[in-house]
């Protein structure tokens, strides 16, 4: 169990570092979602099942969905403007 614990904690640190260094916004939000899921498994190893259920539903669920919808709103606005000007649509935001 200790080895499993150490592997999960190392995975957490790797996820957190790669969120800061990734260039694409969509990728960083997906990595954040998996960070939340691994956190939920660590709560189970620490014998707190209430926290595990709440973190899985809230962290990997609702928070990530809110991030995606925000991204959609920002893309959508820039997409509409570009459609009006007649340029090509869809460029990824930095």
């Amino acid at each position, binding site marked *: 169990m200790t080895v499993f614990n150490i592997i999960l904690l190392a995975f957490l640190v790797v996820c957190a570092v790669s969120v800061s260094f990734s260039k694409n916004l969509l990728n960083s939000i997906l990595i*954040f979602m998996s960070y939340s899921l691994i956190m939920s498994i660590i709560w189970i190893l620490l014998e707190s099942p*209430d926290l595990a259920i709440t973190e899985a539903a809230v962290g990997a669920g609702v928070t990530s969905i809110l991030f995606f919808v925000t991204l959609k709103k920002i893309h959508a606005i820039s997409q509409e403007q570009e459609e009006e000007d007649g340029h090509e649509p869809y460029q990824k935001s930095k």
Partner: protein
Amino acid sequence: MEIGTHLLANYAEVVAVALFGIGFTNLLLQKNMIKKIIGLNIMDTAVYLFLAEKGYIEGHIAPIVVNGNVSPDTYINPVPSGLVLTGIVVSVSVTALMLSLTIRLYRRYHTLDLDEITMRLKKEGL
């Protein structure tokens, strides 16, 4: 500077502190606003990990009464668990609020870069 002796036994708390540092660095140094919000969320979960580690006792089981056994030797400490439960829900509320602020700022200034927004605010005289 001396270091205490429990550094290797507390490896999970060291990881929690390292995650806190990573989240804080993200919050201060990233230019994109969405990454700053992700950094704040990482800081939050690192603090919850630290709190839950304080409540864990080796060999004891989760705080749900089995077979009518209510002696304190069988269960882990339930107090940090309750605190973290409150914290997780507050964290999602704060994230929702910050994301709505980001949407409004984007509609006004059409950029996600905080430095540029500050420059424009100063030029407008606000």
